[in-house]
């Protein structure tokens, strides 16, 4: 058990190291940062000066180790745009992304669990058909298109909510709906199939043979087992959303990390890109690790070890 977690921690660290390396390699692929930093037509002598001040003349290995050393403490240099520490620039966008992630996950989980449960119980009936049609449609709808349609209808036509930006809790409604529907569609399908699979298990027959009430059978005996994959899926979606849903945030002009990254890419603000990717990937790795922990809590077979 503890050995398993040591291995998992090792894997997580390895993954983070891999990410830092990828970030290093990708940004070096761009060519000479000194050339990119300075305006076109800058004399060579000036470029050389900057190169040495940035330490670019040192061997690649040394540069890499230096980069690693700074990355570990979250130091990616100053943003080319605001000349503030890049990590700071990224971190101040985190709350907006976190709020949106939390609200859309909550909406998606509740909606998805309810409809998935209903579809599993209404097996073979019209209700199941309707729910599954909605889920399929929800899965195939690009979130940003849905976002645009929601803005058009609820913000532009009806004027109920702001079209974008952060302007009090009302601004949260439309982006939450867009992302929440996407989350719900995935959860619905997964929960339904997992419920149906669970309901055909032998232990459900045992539960029925014991004369238990259907409520107990569905909620305690079936749902507890069927929810295990759903929880994993939710956590993975959380990780994906915490990474800043770049497109959704752009559609709603949401002041989150995703939009920041898109802007940073546009303006070639590499320290911010590096800091952002590093932060998001680290969060992602940590959540994956937590998912494994959670999994073991839900499934005693893993928790107590075979």
């Amino acid at each position, binding site marked *: 058990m503890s050995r398993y977690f040591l291995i998992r921690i090792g894997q997580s660290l390895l993954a983070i190291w891999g990410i830092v390396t990828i970030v290093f390699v990708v940004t070096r692929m761009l060519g000479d940062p000194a050339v990119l930093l300075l305006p076109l037509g800058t004399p060579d002598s000036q470029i050389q000066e900057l190169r040495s001040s940035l330490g670019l003349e040192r061997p690649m290995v040394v540069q890499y180790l230096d980069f690693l050393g700074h990355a570990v403490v979250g130091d990616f240099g100053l943003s080319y745009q605001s000349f503030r520490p890049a990590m700071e620039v990224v971190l101040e966008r985190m709350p907006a992304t976190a709020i949106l992630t939390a609200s859309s996950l909550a909406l998606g989980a509740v909606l998805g669990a309810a409809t998935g449960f209903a579809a599993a119980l209404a097996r073979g009936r019209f209700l199941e058909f309707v729910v599954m049609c909605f889920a399929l449609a929800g899965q195939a709808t690009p979130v940003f298109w849905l976002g645009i349609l929601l803005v058009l209808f609820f913000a532009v036509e009806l004027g109920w909510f702001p079209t974008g930006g952060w302007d009090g809790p009302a601004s949260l409604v439309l982006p939450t709906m867009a992302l929440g529907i996407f989350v719900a569609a995935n959860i619905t399908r997964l929960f339904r199939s997992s419920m149906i699979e669970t309901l055909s*298990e*032998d*232990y459900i*027959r*045992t*539960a*029925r*043979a*014991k*004369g*238990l*009430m259907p409520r*107990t059978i569905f909620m*305690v*005996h079936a749902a*507890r*087992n069927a929810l*295990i994959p759903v929880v994993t899926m939710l956590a993975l979606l959380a990780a994906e959303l915490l990474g800043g849903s770049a497109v959704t945030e752009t559609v709603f002009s949401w002041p989150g990390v995703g939009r920041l990254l898109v802007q940073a890419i546009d303006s070639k603000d590499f320290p911010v890109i590096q800091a952002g990717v590093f932060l998001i990937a680290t969060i992602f790795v940590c959540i994956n690790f937590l998912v494994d922990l959670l999994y073991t809590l*839900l*499934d*005693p*077979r893993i928790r*107590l070890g*075979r």
Partner: protein
Amino acid sequence: MAEPLFRIRNLKIRIQNGGETGYPVNDISYDLCENETLGIVGESGSGKSMHVLAMLGLLPRGLAVESGEIVFAGRDLLKMNAQELRNVRGKEIGIVFQDPMTSLNPVLTVGRQISEVLVRHKRLDWRSARARARELLELVGIPDAERRMRAFPFQFSGGMRQRVMIATALACEPRLLIADEATTALDVTIQAQVIDLIRSLKERFGMSVLWITHDIGVVAGFAETVQVMYAGQIMERGPVRSVFYNPASAYTWSLLKSLPRPDQVAGEPLYQIPGQPPNPFRLAKGDPFAERNPFATPRCFEERPALRPVGDVQGHEVAAWYDLKTRIRETGGAE
């Protein structure tokens, strides 16, 4: 033997598969008395498990009772609504299924799975239900019951899990215990322990036992009455000794002949029943076993035999047109 505890009359179960209709249980009738132990023997597809599932209202999708009645303690189970049936299941009828690996819920503690029956049927609060569940675990021979209450099924061995299943089935002191291939998945030594356990519990609780198995040998030392089923029909039934020493159905005879015996000559092959197991969608119009029966007479292929008494042994009946002993003599055995 006293009052019949339950009575099955003309039970027919239909299976629908696409356009085809089949009858995995095809018109069976029998009684089970209070305190009786009845062993039902048959291959898979004989309808032996199916008809108890019907009794409990647990038939899988696609299967339905077409006609008949199952009267348990004076009430027809087939006429009950879902709630009435739920009140019988687990309370008056306990059942132990075949595979203890999959029949217990993997994410609930063993204690919870036993206690919940008591909470449901005996209206106990969880505290007293747990106390009673602990006693039950001790009763079925699980050591260190207090600690094991908090354990999960995967932490138990197969035999121990089956004991948990038995404790669950017996929690409400049912009048009938059904063991559906309850020892099939277990090692032989464990099998014997579980059989002994059920035998002693039967004495203690004074209940009837319906023991369903494909292994005719298991029934021998344990049941009072044995009933042999094939293709959804009862081929033979009667007191164990009489049926074993004096089988009247060619099918019973084949089952007994295919058992390995200690006095068997080494190297001598076991008897194998020729042909294919029955298909519920293609039922013969005559005796269902006729096409695999070396002693079949022309009439066997034409007409379905009804149960008739065998000799003068009380309760020994067979569904066959032929007289087995005569036929064996006439054909010189089954070679």
